[in-house]
């Protein structure tokens, strides 16, 4: 970016892959343990928060404030008989929860949680690893997780489970397109796909030079790229099968969806775990890509030490809690939408809006390049706009024609019914039989005629 000042503690891509093995192991184990504990805390937090939103207390029996509730639930699931229904495909049924769970944890390995710190005398970033295409890794892991859902549905050999699994796959694939597109704006501005460098790019907003006018830009992409952010928020709910997009497990119509046959055993616990970890992953991605990552928010960031040492872990955790609370808030506020609405929202609204927004962002970015031939950029943009308008006009006129045809067809059917009451052979009495109305006066006062 233009006038970015990088602190020495800011990790870049070059800082990764240099940890000794034992440091990597420590980081991996800590991430794993924190995620496991985070799920316990998350379940409790979600239940408590949604309870308050529904004017009740929520769990308050096990431990202080019910804090041990999810521990008790987990123990109960672990101690239950591990049922294997007779008709399931045993291998797939057994493996599906694992396929669901492992990628969810893996995705967290590229989430930056802090700057470089000294860990047992080794200078290392608070992030397990980073890649030049780290964000793509997150998307890829989310896609692999879908296999878990599909396999769980398929391996269960039960119609409800299969339907739930198919719904989940269709939904996640559709929303992943919109999700990937909402990242494009971030990539265009940050100029990198590495998570640590995206966070670094949000350290300070650059200055937009608009025809000699110096406009300081906000540093978080959440504000700078607000359409991308809003679309990401929606796709984030869709991607994790959360309310209002929790159709794969829509208990109203599909019993439990893909997890119908996983009665409350440890396998079900793994499915629940994977769902929550997925929620944490998309929350962490939203923080990393749009909310400045581990960097302190504005009032705190005025303090010089806010972004150094171990403090950023706290900011990261607080942001996670906030985003997770948003998930819960949505769950408390929104009804589940219909499947056709889900697909229409994904394909007809989110993706086209996203494409248009990317076009705009790309144009702005192209204009910011120093020695660019502006007329070429503008002409290209204008051409694309004209093309889009042309396509839109073409679609619109076709739709209009279709609508008119449909109306004419319905009108014709009505006319035919009037003219020929037998309607192609079935003996339907004509609508104006004399005995309906009498010869001179109306005898029957009720009825449609």
């Amino acid at each position, binding site marked *: 970016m233009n006038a970015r000042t990088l602190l020495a503690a800011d990790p870049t891509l070059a800082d990764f892959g240099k940890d000794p093995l034992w440091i990597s192991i420590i980081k991996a184990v800590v991430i794993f343990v924190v995620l496991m504990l985070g799920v316990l805390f998350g379940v409790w937090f979600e239940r408590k*928060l949604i309870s*308050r*939103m*529904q*004017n*009740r*207390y929520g769990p*308050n029996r096990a431990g202080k404030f019910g804090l041990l509730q999810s521990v008790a639930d987990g123990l109960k699931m672990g101690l239950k008989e591990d049922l294997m229904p007779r008709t399931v495909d045993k291998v797939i049924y057994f493996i599906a929860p694992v396929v669901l769970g492992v990628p969810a944890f893996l995705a967290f390995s590229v989430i930056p949680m802090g700057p470089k710190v000294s860990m047992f005398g080794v200078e290392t970033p608070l992030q397990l690893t980073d890649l030049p295409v780290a964000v793509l890794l997150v998307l890829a892991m989310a896609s692999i997780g879908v296999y878990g859902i599909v396999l769980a549905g398929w391996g269960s050999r039960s119609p409800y489970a299969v339907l739930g699994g198919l719904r989940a796959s269709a939904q996640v694939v559709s929303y992943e397109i919109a999700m990937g597109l909402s990242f494009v704006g971030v990539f265009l501005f940050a100029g990198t796909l590495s998570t640590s460098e995206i966070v670094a790019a949000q350290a300070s907003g650059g200055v937009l030079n608009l025809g000699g006018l110096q406009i300081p830009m906000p540093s978080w992409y959440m504000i700078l790229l607000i359409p991308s952010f809003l679309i990401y928020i929606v796709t984030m709910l869709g991607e994790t099968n959360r309310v209002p997009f929790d159709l794969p497990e829509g208990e109203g119509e599909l019993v439990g969806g893909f997890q119908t046959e996983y009665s409350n055993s440890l396998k079900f616990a793994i499915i629940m775990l994977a769902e929550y970890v997925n929620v944490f992953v998309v929350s962490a991605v939203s923080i990393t890509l749009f909310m400045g990552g581990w960097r302190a928010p504005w009032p705190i960031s005025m303090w010089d030490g806010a972004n150094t040492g171990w403090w950023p872990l706290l900011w990261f955790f607080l942001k996670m809690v906030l985003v997770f609370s948003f998930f819960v*808030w949505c769950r*408390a*506020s*929104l009804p589940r939408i219909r499947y056709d609405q889900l697909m229409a929202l994904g394909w007809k609204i989110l993706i086209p809006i996203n494409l248009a927004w990317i076009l705009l962002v790309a144009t702005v970015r192209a204009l910011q390049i120093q020695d660019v031939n502006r007329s070429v950029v503008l002409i290209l943009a204008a051409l694309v706009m004209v093309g889009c308008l042309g396509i839109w006009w073409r679609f619109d006129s076709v739709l209009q024609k279709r609508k008119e045809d449909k109306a004419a067809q319905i009108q014709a059917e009505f006319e035919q019914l009037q003219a020929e009451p037998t309607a192609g052979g079935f003996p339907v009495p004509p609508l104006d039989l004399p005995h309906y109305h009498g010869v001179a006066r109306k005898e029957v006062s009720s009825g449609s005629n």
Partner: protein
Amino acid sequence: MGATDWLNPIKGFGVTFHTMFKKVETVNYPEEKRPTAPRFHGRHQLNRWPDGLEKCVGCELCAWACPADAIFVEGADNTDEERYSPGERYGRTYQINYLRCILCGLCIEACPTRALTMTNEYELADSSRESLIYTKEMLLAPLGSGMEAPPHPMRLGETEEDYYRLGRNNG
């Protein structure tokens, strides 16, 4: 109605957010108990006359009225030596099975002597079937002041008319 109609789809967020800061209506039951409505249908009680004699005359109307067949009554004759209730008969055996009882109160309506009424006690859970069949001793009202456990002679006035008049006014 009006200018903010376009916000309707997301107004629900405001409702849930607002509810978070409202007082929770939940009653933490075992720790915190609220009184029931005055005419709550709780556990039954077999009442007594002011001298301690039982009001139940063993007529079995309650058992006949019971739609769940939860009441079992066996009447027996009072004698002058062993008197449990004023009049000829008393309920020797009286049992209510609270596993069957639906607490509808039809037995109360059927009772001709106001012997059977309902209390506001609702904590009837238990862990065995036997303990939920309440017998006569468990259902009888406790002895109040001036009462004496039957059997004993009628102690309210000289005649039966006196007895019932006094009993109605003092009971």
